[in-house]
């Protein structure tokens, strides 16, 4: 038995002896010596990505969930109410400043107190030593308003069409009904202001511009100018009458709104009258069932995704920014795809491979490394100021001194980003073209196909998945780019979308909103950094999802193409 056991051991050792000689076993020749470091590098990368996604996901998803509202009685008998927002340990130094010697439970809590109109701030730090009592009263309400941020407090009185009621729980359904009616009125009001008044303003502007056009073409003293002036003033009169009618309608609605109001009372007893139409949403924060909470959560998400921003972008939705990001990226891909593919087709298939071509190739590769803000500066200087002002001078002289194309806009932004992503597309397309086997090209040419027929029928279909990969990379880079956009057309708040119902429906000269810039604006440019912080996460989550969605769509198309042209089918 013993000898049998030994034998395999000796056998195992002998190959090692053969290769390593007298120096002992060389690990590198036998095993994968650095496998752990390669695996480790991958793991570190994965952990970083997962942690990043988790942070964005958790912070982004919890933001809209309605939390409880605490009524906090302090040791000096002052009372505050608010949503507990964040809790942190105070360091030794901070406690010393507040001259506290007891450091055992040196925690403090940030409460979102709302009521900016009453307190001049939205948030308040409370040291936990100062707290005498915390309660969660069932009748406290969290009320989101169109201005001044949320109100946290009690509903005291209802004023419904000159009748006054004290608020009690039985009146809640009545308030809800009135709130629904008021919301309908608010929507009508918005439509009147934005669509009807907007279109009248637009037409009035057009009249002014056409008159100016005639003036520029024929001079102020010409007969034509005078006849145009007469016909236009008649039209203008009619439009102004319409305008007056709409203004009257608006007036009626505003008067009606003023008749329906509530008197709110904060925890310290300060009263505040608010029109019901100015309330977006209200709920008894501590008296909600799970389904009610979910309902609020979903309605807030819907508002976020479909509404326009309010209150310096901190509240409301980001629909214009979603649309802007999407439209700009799409426009960019539409511009960069043919440009990049044609350029690399020439480089790879037609140009004589030599020093010049490799120089061009090196330059293209280096262009990919140029900081994006440089492209922004170029876009502003060349597209907006140079091309744009020329276009304005030739086609829109009547608009001057107001620029039409002579300033940042979605078209210029898309062109700038197309330029920025062009190297990515060219490099990827060239690689995809190079990956098409030479034998296929020869086969096609030998069949009597011309070079272009070969490219069209054989090379391009085979390279298409690779080209799509390049476009996906370009799209991901373009959609996430902010710095150059700040120079060529992104704004904090765009009054109109680049696509609307006013002729010619698509307005490539308009400035637009962008999710990336929105994050920057909300997080770092708003009056209230603390209130903006959750919005930063939500918007980031949205931006990532949007890019992910666009990429997923592109990848789906690519895999369908691959199937169509490859062995699998």
């Amino acid at each position: 038995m013993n000898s049998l056991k030994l034998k395999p051991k000796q056998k195992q050792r002998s190959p090692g002896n053969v290769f390593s000689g007298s120096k002992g076993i060389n690990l590198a020749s036998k095993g994968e010596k650095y496998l752990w470091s390669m695996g480790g590098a991958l793991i570190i990368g994965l952990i970083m990505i997962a942690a990043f996604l988790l942070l964005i996901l958790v912070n982004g998803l919890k933001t809209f969930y309605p939390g409880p509202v605490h009524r906090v009685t302090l040791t000096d008998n002052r009372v505050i109410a608010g949503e507990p927002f964040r809790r942190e340990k105070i360091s030794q130094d901070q406690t010393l400043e507040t001259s506290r010697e007891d450091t055992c439970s040196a925690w403090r809590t940030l409460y979102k107190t709302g009521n900016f109109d009453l307190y001049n701030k939205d948030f308040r730090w409370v040291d936990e030593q100062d707290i005498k009592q915390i309660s969660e009263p069932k009748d406290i309400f969290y009320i989101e308003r169109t201005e001044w941020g949320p109100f946290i407090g009690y509903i005291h009185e209802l004023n419904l069409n000159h009748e006054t009621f004290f608020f009690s729980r039985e009146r809640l359904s009545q308030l809800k009904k009135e709130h629904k009616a008021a919301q309908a009125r608010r929507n009508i009001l918005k439509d009147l202001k934005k669509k009807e008044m907007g279109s009248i303003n637009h037409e009035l502007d057009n009249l002014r511009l056409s008159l100016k056009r005639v003036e520029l073409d024929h001079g102020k003293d010409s007969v034509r100018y005078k006849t145009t002036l007469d016909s236009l003033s008649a039209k203008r009169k009619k439009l102004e009458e319409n305008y007056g009618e709409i203004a009257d309608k608006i007036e009626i609605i505003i008067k009606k709104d003023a008749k329906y109001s509530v008197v709110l009372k904060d925890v310290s007893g300060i009263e505040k009258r608010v029109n019901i139409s100015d309330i977006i949403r209200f709920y008894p924060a501590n008296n909600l069932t799970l389904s009610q909470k979910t309902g609020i959560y979903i309605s807030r998400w819907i508002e976020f995704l479909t509404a326009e921003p309010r209150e310096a972008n901190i509240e409301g939705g980001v629909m214009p920014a979603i649309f802007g990001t999407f439209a700009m990226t799409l426009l960019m891909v539409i511009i960069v795809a043919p440009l990049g593919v044609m350029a690399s087709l020439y480089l790879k298939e037609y140009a004589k491979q030599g020093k010049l071509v490799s120089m061009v190739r090196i330059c293209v590769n280096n262009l990919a490394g140029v900081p994006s803000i440089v492209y922004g500066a170029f876009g502003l200087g060349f597209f907006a100021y140079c091309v744009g002002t020329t276009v304005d001078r030739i086609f829109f002289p009547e608009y001057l001194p107001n620029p039409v194309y002579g300033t940042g806009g979605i078209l210029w932004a898309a062109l700038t980003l197309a330029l920025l992503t062009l190297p990515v597309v060219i490099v990827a397309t060239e690689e995809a073209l190079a990956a098409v086997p030479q034998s296929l090209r020869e086969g096609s040419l030998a069949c009597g196909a011309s070079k272009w027929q070969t490219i069209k029928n054989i090379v391009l279909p085979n390279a298409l998945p690779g080209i799509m990969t390049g476009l996906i990379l370009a799209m991901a880079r373009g959609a996430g780019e902010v710095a150059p956009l700040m120079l060529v057309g992104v704004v904090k708040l765009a009054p109109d979308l680049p696509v609307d119902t006013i002729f010619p429906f698509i307005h490539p000269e308009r400035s637009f909103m962008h999710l990336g810039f929105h994050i920057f604006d909300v997080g770092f440019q708003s009056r209230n950094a603390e209130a903006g912080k959750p919005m930063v996460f939500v918007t980031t989550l949205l931006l990532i999802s949007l890019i992910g969605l666009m990429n997923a769509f592109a990848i789906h198309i690519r895999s369908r193409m691959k199937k169509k042209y490859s062995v699998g089918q």
Partner: protein
Amino acid sequence: MIIKPSDIENKEIQTIYHPQKGEQGSVIDIDTFSLFYGKSQALFDTTMDVEKGLVTAIIGPSGCGKSTLLKSLNRMNDLIDNISINGKIRFEGKNIFDRDTDVINLRKQMGMVFQKPNPFPMSIADNVTYPLKIDGIRGKNVLAETCERSLKRTALWDEVKDRLNESALRLSGGQQQRLCIARAIAADPEVLLMDEPCSALDPMATIKIEDLINELKGKYTIIIVTHNMQQAARVSNNTAFMYIGRIIEYGKTDIIFTKPKSMKTQDYVTGRFG
């Protein structure tokens, strides 16, 4: 005796031609044709006539210029940069290197089959009808007829008739090569150029291709480059032996293989070098 390259380069080689009785006349006439890759010369004054309707084999050791000569016939060498030529190749009496030659038309008259099967990543039917489609022929009946006729001629029809719309890449290597031959004859060319068509195939597939060549003989003029001497002996009527860019001997296949005049030819066909 083993010939070193230096033996040949040092003295002029006179190509040995055996008398031929061409009944049909020649379709391709290679006339003192030389070819240079940059500065290095690959073909030296090659001269030979290709008889119409017969199979002509070009044999020789690797790197002797067989493929280069073959690819010159339909000007596939144009794809390579830095090529210069000297001499003439006449196709049906017309020099193919004339300025007014329509290269595309020339290639349409000369179907070509490559060393490795290169079916396009499309369906079988699309592969066969590709030469017609690039000519703008769209008629479904014409395309289907051509497809069937070509596939029948290459004895592939029975194997693939039920899956004409499947990817051609799913076929076996031998089937792929026969598909490539079907594609090459779909547009009814004069000449079929085959560049070592069996070198990537197994013996069974090779036999099928050889049978096919025998079938196609007469309908098309076939020029086949091969380094397999048995294959040349089996399928060809005429054989040219090439060595280091020169045609050493050209004549009837049985004469080349049994009674060659050149010592080098004899050494090669008897397997002493190559």
